[in-house]
């Protein structure tokens, strides 16, 4: 665990202007980064001998536009997602909540198969500038993951070799996982709208 804490400190030392915040919730190390320095930090994480994050496990996005504005759906209420840390587990570093002033975040989960450690990067992206740098030149697996984020959320990736929809069809309008996409909206290619 002590090695895990130093991962955050190591990045914060190296890139003091890039790190907005950090937290370590039950052993999951997370860094909140400015998107301007994302590519630089990612390259460092991949190549630095202390990190060697050679495996991009997942790349996803979250739309926080209506977060906390309604009651928690009953399905999630008991799951104990970091909304309310349990009093039984001493938790000195809880989840800081959604980013301020940004509608979306893009989340990167890294794993090092050499050092067997993990790190999560959270990159806030605001609606006014919906483009961040690609990491598909560093981890080729990011290619399709970034296409998925583009398809579902409409976040662009600067420098991506082939940014097209990957799940939905080309005729589809909008980005269905955005919270303002109407739940009942249907865009069938053939057949009735139902």
């Amino acid at each position, binding site marked *: 665990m002590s090695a895990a804490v130093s991962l955050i400190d190591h990045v914060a030392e190296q890139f003091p202007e890039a790190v907005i915040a950090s937290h370590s919730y039950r052993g999951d190390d997370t860094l909140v980064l400015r998107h301007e320095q994302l590519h630089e930090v990612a390259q460092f994480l991949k190549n630095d001998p202390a990190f060697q994050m050679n495996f991009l496990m997942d790349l996803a996005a979250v739309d926080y536009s209506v977060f906390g504005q309604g009651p928690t759906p009953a399905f999630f209420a008991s799951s104990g997602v970091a909304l309310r840390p349990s009093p039984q587990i001493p938790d000195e570093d809880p989840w800081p909540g959604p980013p301020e002033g940004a509608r979306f975040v893009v989340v990167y989960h890294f794993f090092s198969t050499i050092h067997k450690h993990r790190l999560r990067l959270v990159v806030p992206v605001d609606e006014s500038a919906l483009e961040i740098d690609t990491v598909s030149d560093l981890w080729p697996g990011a290619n399709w993951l970034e296409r998925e984020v583009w398809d579902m959320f409409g976040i662009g990736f600067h420098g991506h070799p082939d940014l097209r929809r990957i*799940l939905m*069809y080309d005729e589809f309008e909008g980005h269905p996982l955005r919270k303002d996409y109407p739940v009942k909206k249907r*865009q*069938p*290619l*053939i*057949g009735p709208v139902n």
Partner: protein
Amino acid sequence: MENYPSYFTSRLNEALGWARKYSIFQYPFITACCGMEYMATACSHYDVDRFGAGLPRFSPRQADVLFVVGTISHKMAPVLKRIYDQMADPKWVVAFGVCTCTGGFYDNYATVMGIDTILPVDVYIPGCPPRPEMVLDGLMKLQDKIQDQHTTGVRAEPQARPDMFDTGAGK
């Protein structure tokens, strides 16, 4: 004498229906988890070959029955329709699993709410996924339908379902 040709024809048609219902060449259009149950039905334990449906054809032009097994998304719908259009008459369609019957719990932007919105469906086999017994039951209902079509000259209408919720008791 007047009855003779029609009598003869109907007997021949019946024989044709008998032959067809026991030589179903199916096209399995498998997209999701229901496929595992389809395989369980097709393999030796339940053995769909006892009903003459043991030879799946992987070309729609050689198939009689389209088994639509698994969730159909809007992206997939034109492909499914095209497969159906490529099949030669006479042809039948089986909706296998609740997603193909009604969309199931996928009431969202991506899923077709039942393949009967884009194709005519002969037999619905609900379940998530359906047990092999249900599949065999559906297959036998399809056989009845094929036989009826050749015996009476018309395609059998779907039977009205009994009203399960209006029992009349307690009113």
